[in-house]
């Protein structure tokens, strides 16, 4: 579990404002670490569905869980993670202002670019309920399903 901090500004030595503009959803490094946890569970013979990661931010809190099978476990070397940073940053930056677009961009990225299947994204709502977010069939939008309590 980890936190993505709020955007905040710093002032440079000339008095100019520099904004921190963060992407408030799981990063390629987060996904790499998560898949290492899944691989670890597989090695130890633990249920894969028990592995989850939570991201806390001032906006939406997200959880990812592994819902795939053992053949969908994919891990990344540090070079591969590094190579994912640039296209990830590019693809998600236009969606920063809107959580729903960010969720879509994230799901598109991990499915199409990282080729990660069997990873499910959940939004943890303020009222204690959880919503699963999935790509639609043509991967141009998301479908939200409220989870049974």
């Amino acid at each position, binding site marked *: 579990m980890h936190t993505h901090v709020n955007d905040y500004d710093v002032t440079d030595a000339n008095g*100019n404002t520099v904004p921190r503009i963060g992407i408030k959803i799981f990063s390629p490094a987060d996904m790499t670490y998560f898949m290492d946890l899944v691989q670890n569970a597989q090695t130890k013979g633990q249920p894969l569905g028990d592995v989850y990661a939570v991201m806390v931010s001032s906006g939406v809190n997200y959880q990812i869980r592994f819902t795939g099978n053992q053949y969908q476990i994919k891990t990344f070397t540090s070079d591969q993670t590094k190579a994912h940073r*640039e296209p990830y940053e590019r693809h998600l930056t236009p969606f920063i202002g809107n959580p729903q677009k960010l969720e879509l961009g994230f799901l598109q*990225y991990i499915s199409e670019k990282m080729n990660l299947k069997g990873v499910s994204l959940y939004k943890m709502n303020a009222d204690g309920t959880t919503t699963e977010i999935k790509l639609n069939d043509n991967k141009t939008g998301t479908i939200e399903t409220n989870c049974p309590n």
Partner: protein
Amino acid sequence: MKKIFLILILLFAITCKSQVVSLEEAAQCIANPSCPDYNYSKDINNSLQKYVGTWKGSHNGTTYEMKFVKGFWEDLGMKSDDLKGRIRITNPSSNGFPSLIIFDNFNESDDSKTSFFGLGFQPDLQAYRMYFNGSSPQGCINYGKVFLRINPNAPNQMTIFYWSDMDIVVGDCPPTFQQTFPEKQVINLTKQ
């Protein structure tokens, strides 16, 4: 039939056009959840031109050079006009020590392989945000945003400002590790 075809083409053209925004409009979307959908942030106002060229300056005895060209990016249905950058950072020779190259990709011929490219303007349009993806040992972070700022009254002067990303890391960063750019320092560059 011809007319219907024409109308269809026109409608298609209008729909396509409505998905193009300027870089300035795209920058507003960073802070605005109700921003219209777009798939192309275009340099309609030629705002990137002023950065193009070679820039040089020094900071705490280290020489920083940057070279920018205009470029284009397209992936997963999104397009953007952007800047591609190249970086050369050197410590000049002194006291008998030869000059030391800290980072240099001026000779990289492929614009898409410089690990330094534009993400767009910050919302107040006062600076252009570049992404730098440097190498580092495990446990360290050597990537983040470089803010390029040109005062319109002094178009041959630019400041750069590096701010590291925050991300998950595994293990401890070796204490000897140094980031490619000093963090949160204003570095003055002059157009060459």
